């Protein structure tokens, strides 16, 4: 299987995501200016500060040429993973519900946090046990998840809340401790924590590898069918 990791000007965690993906499959870099997903099974929109976060985090990246392809790919059921800035881009692109607001502290925060897997019936969390706890770092200034109350209720009821910060671990004031959400068909997933930075105990933790393993298993299973 093949991951395609998008590189915008200002992407910072693109190489990290590329290396993490390579632990479970093949990976290629997708250049922002090219309308080509290079036959990727999973598109990863990585962390960083695409276009310098000018205007608003994710607001400009959403219009990059490659994003036209990504949006089409997502609408056709293709798997799209947005990490941190990638989550912001997917919300801006309308592929995920809600929005990410500045942290309550109004400061950048880099911290290892515990996450609870709320829904393991997604292509992104299928390898996780129900209610498994994953230890993964966060690092962002604009990560406070927000959606209007009715929408929040629908997301919870519909199983679209995939990850929550464990009690006492919410680093940014996200509503209902939401750390990651998926779209209704469950093929697009965004999260503020950085699973690509949690793939090796040598550099801290390995909880994030579960996300990549889940994708691998899902794609392999789909090919078998």
């Amino acid at each position: 299987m093949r991951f395609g990791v998008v590189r915008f000007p200002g992407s910072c965690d693109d190489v990290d995501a590329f290396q993490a993906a390579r632990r479970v499959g093949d990976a290629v870099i997708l250049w922002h200016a090219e309308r080509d997903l290079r036959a990727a099974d999973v598109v990863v929109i990585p962390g960083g500060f695409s276009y310098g976060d000018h205007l608003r985090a994710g607001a400009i990246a959403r219009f990059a040429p490659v994003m036209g392809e990504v949006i089409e790919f997502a609408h056709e059921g293709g798997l799209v993973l947005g990490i941190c800035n990638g989550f912001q881009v997917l919300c801006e692109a309308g592929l995920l519900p809600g929005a990410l607001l500045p942290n309550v502290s109004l400061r950048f925060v880099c911290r290892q946090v515990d996450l609870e897997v709320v829904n393991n019936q997604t292509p992104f969390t299928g390898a996780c046990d129900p209610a498994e706890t994953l230890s993964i770092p966060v690092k962002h200034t604009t990560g406070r998840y927000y959606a209007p109350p009715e929408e929040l209720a629908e997301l919870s009821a519909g199983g679209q809340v995939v990850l929550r910060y464990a009690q006492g671990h919410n680093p940014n004031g996200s509503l209902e401790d939401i750390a990651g959400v998926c779209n209704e068909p469950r093929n697009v997933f965004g999260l503020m924590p950085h699973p690509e930075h949690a793939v090796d105990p040598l550099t801290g933790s390995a909880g994030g590898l579960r996300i990549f393993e889940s994708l691998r298993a899902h794609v392999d299973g789909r090919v078998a069918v």
Partner: protein
Amino acid sequence: MSTVASLSEIPRHRQLGLTDHEYELILERLGREPNTVELAMLSLMWSEHCAYKHSRKLLRRLPTTGPHLLLGPGENAGAVDVGGGLALAFKVESHNHPSAVEPFQGAATGVGGILRDIFAVGARPIAVLDSLRFGEPEQSERSRYLLGRAVAGIGHYGNSIGVPTIGGEVYFEPSYEQNCLVNAMCLGIAPRERLIRSAAAGPGNLVVLLGALTGRDGIGGASVLASAELGEGDEAKRPSVQIGDPFAEKKLLECCLELLDRGLLVALQDLGAAGLTSSVSEMVSKGGVGVELNVSRVPVRDSAMEPFEIMVSESQERMLCVVEPPRLHEVLAICRRWETLATAIGEVTDSGHVRVLDDGEPVADLPVHVLVDDCPLYDLKPAPPSAPPRGPEGFETPRAGGRRSEADLLLALLGSPNICSRRPLFEQYDWIVQSRTVRRPEQTDAAVLALPDGSGIAVSIDGNGRRVYADPRLGAAEAVYECAANLACVGAEPLGVTNCLNFGNPEKPTVAWQLTEAVEGVVSACEALGIPVVGGNVSLYNEAPAGPIFPTPVIGIVGKLPDVARAGRLGFAREGDAIALVGPFSPSLAASELEKLWGRTPSGPLPDADGGLIRQVHATIRGGVRRQALRSAHDVAEGGVAVALAECCIAGGIGARVELPDALDSFGEAPGRGFIVSGPADALERWADSGPSGACTMIGKVCGDALQISSRLSLPVDELARAWGQGLDKFF
């Protein structure tokens, strides 16, 4: 600046920071009066910041050769060989005065500048560290403001560009109240063959300016800000502080590395202090050539900019490269891909002159040697202070007067701004991007990064103004020893040193003496440890009307670990492990943090340091960590053995019971010389036999959930952690 009426009386050269003597020298060398553009260029090239005119002679004393050295002083950054075909480039630089005037942008552009120094030699920046000094945060709102904004600025730049901030230090003393210190260090790696020098070569080759538009920001920064004391009305100097754009630099960085990967550049140089003037002068000087520039080709933010403004602007995120004409097309194509502006603005000549044209009209024509080599170097006139040195008055108030128990003193020290947890700072920094960070902040004394072959590099940055103030020579040597000790604790062998010498006005005899003595201290310690100084920076005139800062040499050392998976940790690891105190260690309270707590101005004598023995002990610690005979290793620094033990307990989340020799003061200090280590009792005994005799004393064992030191104190680890963990929270 000439709009102020009273200034119009002052000769132009003095307004620009040149002395009458220096101006006469310029007249003599040129045989004529310099025009406006030339005077602006010369005033910057002859400033302390660019010419090192008060420190260059002293710096020649530093040892600069070593077996691992690849690039030494004189290049944009030094570099050492770390094996596996890789070069490690590194450098520390100050951005003190800009940060004192506008802390967010001052600190941010300090990071931006040091990053450019690293990729200017062809290395990809992989880590930033910072060394910060502010006034007392408890008493001073200004210091809290500077602290908060400088930290935010460092984070803003480093985080946005995707380079992790993996370590650093911060201390608070009244002497930094007006003149804070912001030193930033950067490390980068490159395939050895990609390292590039900055010497321009090949008459006929093109000089290409890369990156941001040139604007009116930072005009005169090197002379007006960096080479003069701070004083009243410095807010008016804010326009001299540059504005950083990490997004532009990220693109510039990737663009430059791709140009180098493709072998398209003859030479590369960053634009820093004194902008185009300094960059181009240094490039042609090193190459023994000349250059002709056309300022009208420089892309500017404001078309009304004067030629002199274009030549001295310190606009950020710009680089200068030399390209062979047939390859220009390819260079421009890569720059377009990275959305980075690239413009051929001139060409290399064999004239030995820097010639500047504006629309074809000559506006400056200066011999390169006058710009770069002819600035007079001054001999310092050092004189030790006649009275014992006194700190600046105003803030030194006793905070722990009267007789207090050792338990109370330990808690007070742990919670004090100079010792407590740095979490509120490092949580604002991305320390994990690039996936190399093997040890996280506060897990070890030195930061540790993994290399592709399974080996690792370690780095630490240290300085202690209190101790250098008390004894400049020994205090500066201690900074080197302590920094090397931090590397030993993770199992790393030191390979190279970079330093930033932060001092007051060198024209004052006492400051000159501090500087001279401190350099000798650095020389002696580097020689004793056998590590070369590969480069660095000098920051003088760090003073305000209340007086100079504590003399603050900041030392950065990089080292190498053969197996990064075996990097040491500082926290006690396992119940039942034996604990030993190691070192040629006879600490005293002179200039200690406990004395600071009592409100005393630091004074000597500091404990002696035997460099040869220190080197042996560091090697022994390093060996023990590498062989895993030691499960923890931590150097004894501020706050002495009691604080070091508490830190080992807090980091490990476990207690300890120890007996200290009666003569050993719990809070005495002798940085770089003492260590607290732990490990399985038998392994620890065997290891101790391998070291210098008498260097290791078994003092107790890891156990329980409290720290008990002889009959002196017993405190639950929880309570220690609370005192230590919350010390800085209230200032953020």
